[in-house]
């Protein structure tokens, strides 16, 4: 089926609602930790400490659901993104796009905020069969926790084993984090990425400040 024909068919009987949810220039976007004013803390806050925290705000988050047996889903993803969907508990990335395995039929793709809609469109153009794509960009945010004692902050927060032997760079788990949950990905020897829900982000921000107090927390802008 040509792309044109497929697009025409979708206009006739839309199977999925697609919507560019981003406005043009003008409207102010507030990430889940906007109220915490991390930029000011980064500029004027403490500079000593062995835990670093940064919010990667306003990125594009797409939840992809599909069966690994759906060839169109697997190859379609690789075709659009230029890399394959990772296997269980793994992640993959190229440039500023990264994807995390969440569950046997679920992945989380994170891209620059402005690219979420166009990527969703392109993925929908090439994938057929049973799958879903949900834009959840407004519903979560990315925190990067780094530094020598980042691992200790994580030990206070999650029961998962973070040791090199069990949690090498690139691995991903979705698990409990304090009394909320987080997608935890190791992105460096002393660097971890947390994807957290918007509504829990203030709680987790308080939790992380508290858990890192004994080591010193440096907020990065």
């Amino acid at each position, binding site marked *: 089926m040509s792309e044109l024909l497929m697009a025409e068919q979708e206009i006739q009987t839309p*199977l999925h609602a697609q919507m560019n*949810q981003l406005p*043009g220039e003008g409207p102010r976007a507030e990430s889940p930790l906007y109220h915490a004013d991390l930029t000011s803390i980064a500029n004027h806050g403490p500079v000593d400490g062995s835990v670093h925290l940064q919010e990667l705000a306003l990125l594009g988050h797409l939840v992809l659901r599909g069966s690994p047996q759906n060839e169109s889903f697997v190859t379609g993803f690789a075709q659009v993104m230029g890399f394959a969907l990772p296997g269980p508990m793994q992640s993959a990335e190229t440039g500023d796009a990264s994807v995390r395995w969440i569950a046997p039929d679920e992945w989380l793709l994170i891209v620059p905020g402005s690219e979420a809609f166009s990527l969703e469109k392109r993925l929908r153009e090439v994938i057929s069969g049973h799958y879903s794509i949900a834009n959840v960009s*407004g*519903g979560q945010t990315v925190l990067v926790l780094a530094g020598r004692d980042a691992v200790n902050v994580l030990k206070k927060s999650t029961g998962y084993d973070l040791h090199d032997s069990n949690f090498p760079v690139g691995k991903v788990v979705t698990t409990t984090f304090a009394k909320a949950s987080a997608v935890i990905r190791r992105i460096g020897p002393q660097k971890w990425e947390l994807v957290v829900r*918007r*509504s829990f982000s203030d709680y987790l921000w308080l939790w992380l400040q508290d858990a890192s107090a004994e080591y010193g927390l440096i907020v990065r802008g």
Partner: protein
Amino acid sequence: MHHNSMTQQNRLQTGGRINRSRPLSFKYNGTSYPGFEGDTLASALLANGVDVVGRSFKYSRPRGIIAAGADEPNAVLQLGATEATQVPNVRATQQELFDGLVSTSTNGWPSTDNDMMSYIGKVGGRMMPPGFYYKTFMYPQSLWDTYEKFIRKAAGLGRSPVENDPDIYDQLNQHTDVMVVGAGPAGLSAALSAGRTGARVILADEQAEFGGMLLHSDEKINGKPAAEWVASVTKELRAMDNVMLLPRSTVNGYHDHNFLTIHERRTDHLADLAPKGQVRQRMHRVRAGWVVLATGAIERPLVYGNNDVPGCMLASAVSTYIKRYAVVPGNELVVMTTSDRGYKSAFDWQDAGRKVVAIVDTRAEPSGACVVEAQKRGLKVIKGSAVIEVKGSKRVSGAVIASIDASGNKVTGNVRRLSCDTVASAGGWSPAVHLSCHAGSRPDWRDDIQAFVPGKTVQKQLTAGAVNGSYSLVVCLEEGARRGVLAAANAGFGDQSDELVEVALVDEVKEGPTMTLFHIPHTKSTSRAPKQFVDYQTDVTAAGIEVATREGYESIEHVKRYTAMGFGTDQGKLGNINGMAIAAKSMNKTIPETGTTIFRPNYTPITFGAIAGRNCGELFDPKRYSAMHRWHLENGAKFEDVGQWKRPWYFPQPGESMQDSLNRECKAVRDSAGILDASTLGKIDIQGKDAREFLGRVYSNAWAKLGVGKCRYGLMCGEDGMVFDDGVTACLADNHFVMTTTTGGAARVLEWLELYHQTEWPEMEVYFNTVTDHWSTLTISGPNSRKLLAELTDDIDLSKDSFKFMDWKAGTVAGVPARVFRISFTGELSFEVNVQANYGMYVWEKVFEVGAKYNLTPYGTETMHVLRAEKGFIIAGQDTDGSVTPIDLGMSWCVANKKPFSYIGKRGMAREDCVKENRKQLVGLKTKNPQLVIPEGSQAVADPKQPIPMTMLGHVTSSYYSACLNHSIAMGFVRGGLSRMGETVYYPQPDGSVIEAEVCSPIFLDPEGARQNV
């Protein structure tokens, strides 16, 4: 009692592991005393000659320090210099001394030295027979209340602070391949050999220094003092990246699946209050591959008359105080021993320059090397004899010695009195099997060592050293090394090769055989002899145990509960085995026949702070916020908890009462326009070709014909046909829907959908994703809502004919892409604007910029409740309680029984009870007095004069004052309510008044729906 506070009269000039260059000062019961860095509170008290540290539980007898570790039953003190830093239940033997430490005894009333209770106690003992604790369970509750107050007051094991604890306690999750519990010789060896394989190892010990008994031992390892070996092993371990060392850390619980809880005291040795920024105590939650228990053994005291008088101590504790702390806890010592072990304490005492009165050996013909040494040292050894009783009350003043028969059951004569102030007893060792019992394993009795050792276990557990009954140093070291290698190999590290097992060279001392003896006989029968204490903390005596068995309590578990043996905060560490032996003897059974009780977590008491960790105060429970929360705060909202969400409840203006605010907010919505933050409602994105069919199966109503662009209300029922959630679902595209749920039900509904998809209908092609947090939802409601919204959009046709009730449209609002749903929970013309949550606040503010001229009024959940109740709309969870069907709610219009496939709840609703006449049905209730609001929960009755118990017809679920209607409104269940329209029901109130109400339709306002269809 007056002490010369500067002398430390029992302190030696040399020796020990204390730091004499760091003098410290501390307080006990208001008096200042000196001590040294390296002391425990107990060693410092003994150094200063403090004999009495508490009063006993039942008899209020003066008690002194017996032990030197976790087994101490008496020296349980209250710590804290200020109210906020009070810590109860601290064993002085485990509390390191720091400068400025403030401690008080806890059992004393009014003071420990001169205690009024002791007079009562002498009489009170008769009022409190051994079965007091147990028998009261059989008494009526009211009586127990009285007993409890008395017992608590008398027991007084400390008190909680009444101010907030300013210190920080936290928890850390740990994972390890090998967990070694205890850093004595066996534990150190195990950790070292496991660590050398590269396995992850955690080594925890309750003491400040690793080494266990080696810290006060004269033995040599590889020709060097044992302490040097400890230092070199500790140094090697510290250098290993894969090894974590946790001193001052008690492994208090060994739970199922090799999960252990460790209580680390990080600053309790430094000061009353943790240094700024430091965590006082930390709970380590450890998941271990394999565990090596090297928990050691606890010395058993012998049970003899008045064995609780201060000055009666464990022989091993006497040695510990002398060798480790340079404190000799008395002047004239009598040692009673059943083995060679007691001799060592006498030698240490003599070496410290104090007088050894006699070594009383219960064995008729002791033969070990130490007997020879005693003779060489010129010490008096009295063979075949025992201390049957001591004299004194606040301090031992003498020991009554008698010869005993070879079985140890009878005094054979030759009774005499020796003058002394200290009696040390050595009754053999009880392996510290506590942790091995925590997951349910019962310990095994070993006749050869007359002790229980860890039994068969389902845990991945090994044991090494004294806990295993291996008491000789060389065996401890080798066993530790081998178990460490094995544990690592089991966890996947190393190949169990002998190369890793370093065999240390130790000079072995030949020991003679030990005599089996627990309970020392007296010239009088046990019941008439002076009290022979078994469990010091709960005042259980040998006579009491005999009474228990005489009364027919044959199971050791029953004996325990009858006497309260082992019920103290020390869990009977000293007393349990003696108690079992006495029970066995009095029943003419062996100890293994009698059996043993098992231990539960925690090994030693733990603070609530460590259990709670950081889950307190602000962090006790997550608070969830919408994207507009800052606006709500700035505009004075009062908040209501809905699940974990903080939702605006109402927005009071200065001077308004809550009812004033509600009246104003309600009227604004009905007269012009109001706005509600509805972002917290659950939102589930549903995609797939079977999405529509799936909806038809989980909702009670029909979904087959819902067109793209349309919304529909649905009721969700359990298999029992009872409503559990509701909400509006919109058709976004043929294969794409978005479902809304109640705020509190969002997670449950998503799980429900997944459960049915994954377990019942996996063939259906559908995916569910939560988008609750992704969309901000702004509900603009009121007759002016269309006009208001029109000012913010130029691409959505809001006209009545184009954008009908229950339609949704996409477009932009304030320049932000939005999905707008024309649905209404207020009965007014209403638009729910959904925008990506990062823009929620921006759009909210823009709505207010244009809203001023419409008197746009923010309203909260309480106003929403009133507005919807005026329309008779239910709230799932408030008007439903898991026992009502859609029919009971008067919502049969929301049930479609003709769907080709069944739906969840259809069969449940058809059950006999669900279709019978006269079920409780939801109706409206209009009070006869329009100003009276029936309290929610009030019970309906037909005849208010009926005697109690009255026949109750139902209850009120929602009740408010409606400012728009100028009268109160309510919804509630009434039996057969739908056929009682116009009848009067009565709501009796706790104050005796009765509120009359007429049964009516729950739709109080605009029953035709004219207001929302404009």
